[in-house]
C-alpha cells in the first residue's frame, strides 16, 4: 500500500469566498499582514502500490475529488 495526499484548490482566478472571509477576519484577531488566503481540501488515503499508481491517483482526482472546471489539484505519494 502507498499513502497519498491530495490537495484540491479552487483555481486562482475563481473566487474563494471562504479564503476571503478568513483574510478579512485575521487582522481583527491580531494577525496583521496576512494575504492571499485560499482554502481547499486536503485528502489522505491509502491505495495499492503499483507502476500505474500515479495514473490511478490522477484519474481519481480528476474524476471524483476535483471538478476540473473550477478546481486544480496536486498530490504527493509517500511510499
Amino acid at each position: 500500500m502507498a499513502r497519498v495526499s491530495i490537495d484540491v484548490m479552487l483555481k486562482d482566478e475563481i473566487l474563494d469566498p471562504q479564503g476571503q472571509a478568513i483574510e478579512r477576519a485575521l487582522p481583527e484577531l491580531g494577525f496583521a499582514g496576512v494575504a492571499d488566503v485560499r482554502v481547499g481540501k486536503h485528502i489522505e488515503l491509502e491505495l495499492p502500490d503499483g507502476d500505474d499508481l500515479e495514473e490511478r491517483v490522477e484519474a481519481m482526482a480528476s474524476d471524483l475529488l476535483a471538478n476540473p472546471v473550477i478546481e486544480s489539484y496536486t498530490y504527493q505519494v509517500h511510499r
Partner: protein
Amino acid sequence: MTANAAARGTPQPAPAPEKLAGELGLTPTEHQRIVDTLGRVPSVAELGAYSVMWSEHASYKTSKAHLARLPGEGPAVLVGPGENAGVVDVGDGLAVAFKIESHNHPSYVEPFQGAATGVGGIIRDVLTMGARPIAILDALRFGDPAAPATRRVADGVVCGIGGYGNAIGVPTVGGEVDVDACYDRNPLVNALCVGAMGRERLQLARAERPGDVAVLIGQPTGRDGIGGASVLASASFGGADTSKRPNVQVGDPFAGNQLIEACLQLFARGLTAGMQDMGAAGIACSTAELAAAGGLGMRVDLDRVPLREPSMAAWEILCSESQERMLALAHPAQLDELLAVCRRWEVAATPIGEVTDGDRLVFTHGGEVVVDVPAASMTDDGPVYQRPIDAWIHPRAGEDVDAADGAGAGAEAGQAGAPMASADLAAEWAELLSHPRVADPTWIAEQYDSAVGSATVAGPGADAAVLRLPGADGMPGATRRGVAITTDSAAQRCALDPAEGARQIVAEAARNVACVGARPVAATNCLNFGDPTRPTVMGAFSATVDGMAEACRALGTPVTGGNVSFYNATGSTDVHPSPVVGVLGVLADVGAVVPSAFRGAGDRVLLVGAPTRPGLAASLWQRVYGELAGSLPPVDLDAEAALHRLLVGLAGDGLLASAHDVADGGLAVALAECALRGGVGVRVTAEAGLSPRQWLFSESPTRVVVSVAPPEIGQVRHAVEAAGLGATELGETVDEPTLSVDGVATLDVHTAGRAWRGGLPAALGGGVS
C-alpha cells in the same frame, strides 16, 4: 469624476474587427449594424460589450417578437415585463415582486455553483425592485435516473440551491422535479423568487438626473463567467491562456446576505435614485440599461472598479459576471450617507461614474476612452429576429390511444389494451406513486430551509406555498395577508401539443393556487426550449406563447415577467418544449389556508370541477407503461376560471377540510397524496362510464379532490351548482390503513407510503456530496 473625466478621444479600432466579431458570435449583419451605429470601426471593448448585450440571453432577439403577445397588464399589476421582476399590488399598501429564471447550462458544467448562482441571481432581481426576498421555488428537470451523470448532477444542483438559499437566509418553499432522458446532458434549473415590500418602496431601474453618481456595490470584479467573450483573450492579446477565463461563476451567499440588508437600508432611507443588479454582461449591461431606460447617458471610469485580479482588460471588466454586485445611482448630496450604510454592512461601495446629459454610454480605462456608444443601441435598439417557423408536429400526435387505454400502438403486447385484473391496477397505482414526478418531495425539501423568516404557512407538500407577508422591516407576523405561489410544467404534453400543453400548465398552476384558497392574480414564466434556428422549435415556441397568452387572459393572471432559455439539448436532440409557469395568488387571511392533506376520518370526499374524460395521452401512466402519443383532452378555460372562483369562495367560507388538484397520475395519485399526507385512509367508488384504468389515471384537466365535513356537504353542493360545475361524491376518509377504490384497486397504506416516500431517493439519491 476627476482626472479621467478629461479622457477624450475615439476608442481605438479593434484589429481585424469582422473576424473578431464572428468569433464573438456576432453575425456579419450584426457587426455591420454596430459599424453603422457608431460610424466607425468598433473597439475591442465595444465589440465585447455588444456581443454580450446582443446575445440571445441578454437581448431576447429571437423571442421578443413573440413575447409581446403575452398579456402583461391587469388591475393588480404595478410593474409588468421589462423590469428586473414583475410587481403586483396585493392590497393593504403591500406589493409583491416575483420572477422565475433559468440557470440550465451552468448547472450542467458545475451543478453546485451553477444552481447556487441561479438562486443568487433571481434573488437580486427581486431585491432590485425594492423588495425583501421572502421565498424561493425551484423547478428542476434531470436526465434519466439510469444515465451515468444524473445523480451527480441532481445531487450537486440540490446541494447548490440549498447551499445558497439556506445560507443567504431566504426560505426555499416549493418547486417541482421531473426526469426525462432529453435532459441527460442538459438539466433544467429554474429558480423563482418572491419579494415583499410596501408599495411606496418600489424602485425602478432607470437613471433620472444627470449628475447622479453611479456606485458599484458588492463584491470585487473578477474574471467570472466571461464565457462567450473569452475568445477576445486569444484574439487580441496574443493567445493568453483561455483556460484562465472560466465560464463558471462562484456564489458567495454570505456576501449576498449582507448585500440584501445593505440595499434594503438604502431603500428604506431613500438613498438611491435607481438600482440595477449585475447578472449577465455585468457592468456593460447594468449601465446601459439604467441609462437607456432614463433616456440619458452615463460616463464610467473602469479604473475605479475594484478588481479581484489587477491585470484585467477593459472588455473583461465590462463583461465580467462576478456575483453579488449591484449598481446604484445616488444624488451627490446623499452619496456619503449611502457609502456609510454600505460600510456598516461591510459591503464595498465605490463610485465609478455618473449620469450625463445626452444618450452616450462612455467608458474610460487607463486614461483613454474605450467605449463611446449610444446607450440604447445596446439595449432597446439591438437586432430583433423573426426566425422561420414551422409547425411543431409530434409524429404520434392524434393517435387514438385512449381507446387502447393509453398505451398507444408501439407499446409491448400484454400491457396495452388487454383487460387487467384489479391486482394489476393496484400495482400500477403503486408504481406511479414512486415516479419522481409525483413521489414525496421530502428527500429534496428536507435539504432546504423552508422556515427562515417565520412566514411559511404552507411549504413543500402544499399545492402552492403560502407566505404570510412580513412588515417593512422584515419582521414576521406584521399582517394576516398572504400570497400563494407555485410552479408548474408539463413537458410531455407540450411535446405532443405545445399550445394545449401551455394552456394546461397555466390552468394547473392557477388551480394549485386556488386549491390553497388564494385568488390567482399574476404569472411569471420560464421558456426552456431547444435550438431556435430549427423552425419546428420556433413553431413550438410560438404555439406555447399563444397557448399561454390565451390561458393567462382567461384566468386573469397576466404575465409580469419571465425568462427564455434556448439551445437546451442533449447531444443533437433538443429537449422537449419545456415551459415552466409560476402563478401568484393573494389571500386576505393566511389563517384560512386550505391544506391538501385529508384532515381526519369521516369526511366526505368529492371530485369537483369538470367531469373525468379519457386522458392518458402524455399522462404519467403512459410515460411508465406506453409511449408518448395521442391527443390531449382540451381544457375549458371558462370552466377552469369558474372552478378557481369556486375554490376561493369555499375556502373563504371555511367549508373545505382539504383540496388538492388532480394532475400527474390522475385521481389515483391525487387521492393517495391526500391520504398519505394526512395519515388517513380513504374508501371511494369509481364512477361508471370509463374504463377503470381511465378513471384511475386520466389526467383530464379542471378537477379537484376536496374533503368536506358531513354537515357542510349541502352548502358545498349548492356552491358547486351555482358555479355551473359538477361535484361527484366519491366516498369518505376512513380510520383504516387502506386506499380503496371499490372493486377496482386497493392498496394498503404501508405499500403506498413506501412507494411514494422511496421514489425520489431511489431515483436521484446516492450522489456524492
